[in-house]
């Protein structure tokens, strides 16, 4: 039974209209649903219980809109919200007409985090970068990054520039997820060994809920750099179709004369994708290999104790 007291939060905060709901919908393959709960007279908060990475729960919060927000909300409710936060993801709209106001809402969040969850990891996403001209993007992002780093002191924040219309969103969230996995380097090493033993061309490890690539191994350079995001989008689309039939996606094998690819549940938090370019190796052999490796990787995940215990499915 998952221990509700140990549920850790991922706060996705930002001004209204900055793109949080779209982002959440895209990453988690949810329909844009509005699960609103009124926490106060003037506040509508979106509470989405999307689980990922074991027992992390994603909460979406709109910041700003009214100035009374600060008074009512941050004072009376703030401990409740900012306790047990594992991750704070703050979204800034790059085209915002009032950048000072954004900062104005950002700082109290930081203070609250500092007080209640000082170990939380902070990520700042500078979003909607597609609206900026291509030759100016790097410059504008660097400026924003410097400002945000400065503002966040003494806390450390990692900044990413994102847009839902290119691969930057996927990459940013992959990086975020990568940093949240406890022993990820060990995982990568083991993945490389696994791949070399089974003679795979490429092995990918996906997070289970979002199909974000956690780590990967490839034995030679592949041409398409967008393939991770493409696979993720294809599988999430497929999962949506499966859910229409009240079925859940478990595994998939794709095979032709050039390659064989296997996508399967791996550990409680991950999926694995194995690509073999030697089609003479029978599927059963690869599937047995994957099954045996599973036990080993599960042990790796369990190393850190109850925090990453198996969830009931």
């Amino acid at each position, binding site marked *: 039974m998952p221990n509700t007291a140990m549920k850790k939060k991922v706060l996705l905060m930002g001004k209204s209209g900055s793109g949080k709901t*779209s982002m959440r*919908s895209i990453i988690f393959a949810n329909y844009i649903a509005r699960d609103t709960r009124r926490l106060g007279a003037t506040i509508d908060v979106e509470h989405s219980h999307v689980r990922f990475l074991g027992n992390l729960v994603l909460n979406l919060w709109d910041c700003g809109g009214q100035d009374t927000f600060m008074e009512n909300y941050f004072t009376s409710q703030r401990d409740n919200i900012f306790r047990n936060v594992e991750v704070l993801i703050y979204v800034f709209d790059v085209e915002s007409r009032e950048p000072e106001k954004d900062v104005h809402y950002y700082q109290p969040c930081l203070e609250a985090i500092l007080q209640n969850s000082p170990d939380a990891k902070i990520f700042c996403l500078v979003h909607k970068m597609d609206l900026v001209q291509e030759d100016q993007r790097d410059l504008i992002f660097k400026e924003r990054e410097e400002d945000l780093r400065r503002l966040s002191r003494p806390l450390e924040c990692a900044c990413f520039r994102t847009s839902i219309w290119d*691969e930057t969103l996927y990459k940013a969230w992959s990086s975020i997820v990568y940093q949240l996995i406890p022993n990820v380097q060990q995982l990568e090493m083991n993945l490389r060994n696994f791949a070399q033993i089974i003679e795979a061309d490429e092995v990918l490890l996906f997070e289970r809920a979002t199909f974000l690539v956690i780590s990967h191994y490839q034995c030679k350079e592949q*041409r398409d750099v*967008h393939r991770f995001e493409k696979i993720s989008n294809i599988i*999430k*689309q497929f999962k949506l179709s499966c859910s229409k039939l009240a079925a859940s996606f478990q595994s998939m094998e794709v095979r*032709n004369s050039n390659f064989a690819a296997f996508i399967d549940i791996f550990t409680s938090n991950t999926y694995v994708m194995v690509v073999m370019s030697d089609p003479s190796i029978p599927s059963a052999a690869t599937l047995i290999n994957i099954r045996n490796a599973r036990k080993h990787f599960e042990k790796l995940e369990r190393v850190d104790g109850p925090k990453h215990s198996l969830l009931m499915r």
Partner: protein
Amino acid sequence: MTIFILTWRIRPFYIEPTNIVNVNHVIQRVSDHASAMNKRIHYYSRLTTPADKALIAPDHVVPAPEECYVYSPLGSAYKLQSYTEGYGKNTSLVTIFMIWNTMMGTSILSIPWGIKQAGFTTGMCVIILMGLLTLYCCYRVVKSRTMISSLDTTTWEYPDVCRHYFGSFGQWSSLLFSLVSLIGAMIVYWVLMSNFLFNTGKFIFNFIHHINDTDTILSTNNSNPVICPSAGSGGHPDNSSMIFYANDTGAQQFEKWWDKSRTVPFYLVGLLLPLLNFKSPSFFSKFNILEIRLQFPQLTGVLTLAFFIHNCIITLLKNNKKQENNVRDLCIAYMLVTLTYLYIGVLVFASFPSPPLSKDCIEQNFLDNFPSSDILSFIARIFLLFQMMTVYPLLGYLARVQLLGHIFGDIYPSIFHVLILNLIIVGAGVIMACFYPNIGGIIRYSGAACGLAFVFIYPSLIYIISLHQEERLTWPKLIFHVFIIVLGVANLIVQFFM
């Protein structure tokens, strides 16, 4: 709990299927970026309710749609606005007008001559019957895509359908006939432009020097004279000027340097050849868009080679808001075109002053029946000259794209390839303008040739084959469509004997 999901398939742009090809022979048919964007957009479209605008691809991220040009040889050519949602926004009226406008072109100048050659009653009947026949074949073209059920044909144009049925032979032959129509049109344009430029120059010269030269040519005796330019040369139309001024050396010099068949065609080369070498015709398509809006109040409509629109009718109808009205709109457009032809043809033919001049005087370009001093025809010539000069580079671009694109795979391999192609096309135009400026003849040869493929053979043959594949072929249908094919072939053969 059943989840009721509205899936909204957005196809903002078209990506060819990515090939999983032999590893050693990687053909990059689609850029990785475009392919990734395609997958992204498909995925996002599953996430939203139709009311939500947040996940609809904005214009600046979608790769620019392939430039889509519609043209009718001797008609209009312009860049078509393609809509990102995949469904057109044009009302029926706009669609009908666009079809009418694209079809109408310079062959209206030859309609009175055609009626004269056929005889009045026969001519009228032929116009109506031809309209009906080409309308039926156009209907077949429009329906041909829907008969292919196994593949996604939403972005196919008619040459793609031909390729599906006839393989690479279909592709190459449709390319060949399309080029015949384009180059034929460009030759006709060159002849006409030389003619109009010549007459315009002559008008201006005569106006400045107050010369009246209608006395020496057979003409009628009223204030708006109609002339019979070929009366003195035994019925063979040529472009030589027959006026001599014994005492006026200035005019003589002018005549020497401004001759319809000897010099003016070459002056056009300097003007138009550079324009043909441009990489992109978007500069000219802007003029054409202006031209379309100005068409209505213009003196003469711009008509086209017979009723030819089969190469781009699918694209034009795709933008129709109510797709179920496509057939009806097509019929209405054809009816309008037929009526226009009849009207102009009958009007010119019937009002040609027959007692002083015989009907044989009607020129292949009926504007030639007006002297160069006539104000109205001068204005008409100027407008037509301008319009043709803007359409000519666009036609050149389309010919270049089709030919070089298929032979070299690149629509602009190098300036030399393009220059050589342009020199060949322009050279053909100049030679025709000098030695065989019978636009009626050129129109009928190139029209019969390209019409043979696109109007008669392909639609009928494809219909027969698709019916045969579905095993719905009956004897009456087979006979009827074979008859159409025979008509088309006969139409071409008979041109050489008349």
